[in-house]
C-alpha cells in the first residue's frame, strides 16, 4: 500500500563522492520490504524523484542517493529540520523467503543502497549473505563498512582499481569464483545483465527505469517480461530471474 506523507529531515550528509545519505522521520508503515522505493516531491521540479530505501524502521528511513541533476542536487542541499512530501511504500521489494542458504548480494554504484536493509533482513531470518559491490573509484565507495559491521563478507571492486579488486563487480565475482545458491542484484541494467549471464543460479533483480508517478498509474516504466508487461514501479522494481526476457 502506498502512502503520501510528510517527513522531517533528521540528517543529510555526504557519504561518498556525489553520494548522500538522508535520514527521514515520519510514517514508514508502508515501507515493508527492502528493495522498495519512495518518490520525493522537490520544489520547482514537476515530477517526483524516485529513490530506493537503504533501511527503514516504523518511523524513520534512510535513503542513499547520488547527485545526478538539479533535483538530487537540491535534495543534497536540504537542511535537517525541514520537511519533505514523500510518496512511500512503492514497489514490490525483495522477497527474502525465496532466498537460498548462501545468497550473494550484488550491487553497483548508488543502486547498491537497498542491499544494506536486505542483508539485515536475511541475517534476522538466519541467513548470512555474501556481498559484492562495485564502484567507479575508491572515493565513490559506500556501504562496504556498514555491511562488514553486520558480519557480511564484502568484496569491493572499483573500475580504476583504487580500492579492492580492479574491474567490474561481475568480473570480480566470476574471477574469484564466489559460490552462491541465490542472487539478489540491484544496479544499472548492464550490471544486471552481467549478473544474469554469470550463472544459472536463481535470483531477484531490481531494475532502474525513468518513471513519472511511481504508483502504477502512468505506465511510463513498463517492462516486457515472459509473463506480459509489468510496471517496474508496481509489479517491480524487483523481477524474478524466470520472468526476465533476456
Amino acid at each position, binding site marked *: 500500500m502506498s*502512502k503520501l506523507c510528510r517527513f522531517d529531515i533528521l540528517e543529510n550528509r555526504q557519504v561518498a563522492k556525489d553520494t548522500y545519505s538522508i535520514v527521514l522521520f515520519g510514517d514508514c508503515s508502508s515501507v515493508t520490504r527492502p528493495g522498495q522505493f519512495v518518490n520525493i516531491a522537490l520544489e520547482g521540479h*514537476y515530477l517526483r524523484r524516485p529513490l530506493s530505501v537503504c533501511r527503514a524502521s516504523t518511523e524513520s528511513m534512510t535513503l542513499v542517493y547520488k547527485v545526478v541533476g538539479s533535483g538530487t542536487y537540491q535534495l543534497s542541499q536540504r537542511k535537517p529540520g525541514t520537511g519533505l512530501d514523500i510518496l512511500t511504500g512503492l514497489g514490490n521489494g525483495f522477497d527474502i523467503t525465496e532466498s537460498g542458504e548462501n545468497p550473494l548480494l550484488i550491487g553497483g554504484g548508488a543502486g547498491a543502497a537497498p542491499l544494506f536493509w536486505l542483508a539485515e533482513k536475511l541475517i534476522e531470518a538466519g541467513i548470512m549473505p555474501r556481498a559484492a559491490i562495485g564502484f567507479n573509484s575508491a572515493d565513490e565507495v559506500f556501504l562496504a563498512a556498514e555491511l562488514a559491521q553486520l558480519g557480511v563478507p564484502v568484496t569491493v571492486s572499483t573500475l580504476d582499481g583504487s580500492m579492492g579488486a580492479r574491474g567490474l563487480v561481475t568480473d570480480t565475482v566470476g574471477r574469484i569464483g564466489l559460490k552462491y545458491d541465490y542472487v539478489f542484484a540491484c544496479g544499472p541494467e548492464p550490471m544486471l545483465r552481467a549478473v544474469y549471464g554469470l550463472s544459472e543460479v536463481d535470483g531477484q533483480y531490481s531494475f532502474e527505469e*525513468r518513471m*513519472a*508517478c511511481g*504508483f502504477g*498509474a502512468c*505506465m*511510463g516504466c*513498463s517492462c516486457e517480461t515472459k509473463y506480459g508487461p509489468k510496471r517496474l514501479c508496481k509489479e517491480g522494481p524487483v523481477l524474478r530471474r524466470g520472468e526476465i526476457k533476456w
Partner: protein
Amino acid sequence: MVRNTQVSLCGIKLKNPVMPASGVYGFGGEYRDFYDPNILGAVVLKGTTARPRFGNPTPRVAECTSGMLNSVGLQNPGIDAVISQELPRLREFYHGPVIANISGFSVEEYASCCGKIDGLVDIIEVNISCPNVERGGMGFGTDPELAAEVTRAAKGATAKTPVFVKLSPNVADITEIGIACQEAGADGLTLINTLLGMRIDIRTKTPVLANKIGGFSGSAIFPVALRMVYEVSRVVHIPVIGVGGISKAEDVIEMMMAGATAVQVGSENLRDPMACYRIIEKLPNLMEKLNIENLVDIINIAE
C-alpha cells in the same frame, strides 16, 4: 448556502465536473490507496485499442519545466480484456459514470471497439489525437475529413452510448476539426490531448525519450488548452470537456468559464495522487468566494 457542483453531459449527471484524464488513471484502481474514486465526477479509462499493446520502448517519460513528456504509446490489454476484466473490476468499488477511451489504427478498428463497448459505459471518448503511435491516432485528428470519418464510424457502430471525440492541439485551426466532428454526429468533444514535444539529455547528447518525440502535458499547457476550449466552445453547440494543465480548483472554474461543461485532470495526478480529491474538496469553498451558486451557470460565461 449549499454550492451546487453538479453538471450534466448528454443527460449523464456528474456530481461534480472533475474527472481524471485518460491515461493517468489506469482502469480505476491505482488511486484507491489515496482516496475513494466515488468522489469523482466520472472515471476515464486508459486508451484502449482492438488488440493488447505494450506501447513504445522506454524511457517513455521525461520531465520538463512545469510539465512532462510521455511517449507511452497506448499500453493497454485490448478491448476484450477491458470489457471482460477491467470494467467488472472497476464496478466492484466504483459506482459512478465511466468514460471509455478508444483508439485505433484504422476507421474499422475504431468502429469495432466502439461497437463492442456500446452500452457498457456512460460515454465513449474517441481518441483521434494520440501523438505516440506511428500510424492512426493523431493522424485522424489533424485532418477534418478523417476526423469526421472516424466520428461517423463510431456513431454508426453505437446505439446507446454518447460519443465524444478527443481532439489534438497539434493543428493550425482546432475549430474546423471540432466543427467537422460535430457535423459528423459527435455528441461532445474533449480537448486537448498533449502537444508534441522533445527533450535532449545534454550529457549523453541524445533524446531523453526512446521515441525521441512525445506528448507534452502539465500545468505549462493550461493557457493553450484554455484558448482552444474557448475557441471551439464558441463555434459548436455540443458539450466540451476541457483538459490540459489543470492543477487546481481555480483552473476548473477558468476552464468552465471558457466553455467547458466538465474538466479532466491529467498529469497533475502523477505528481500528486491526491490532485482530484484536493480540487473537488476546494470547489465549493472557491464557489462561495466567487459568489457562484450553481457551477453550470459559469459554463461559457467568458465573453
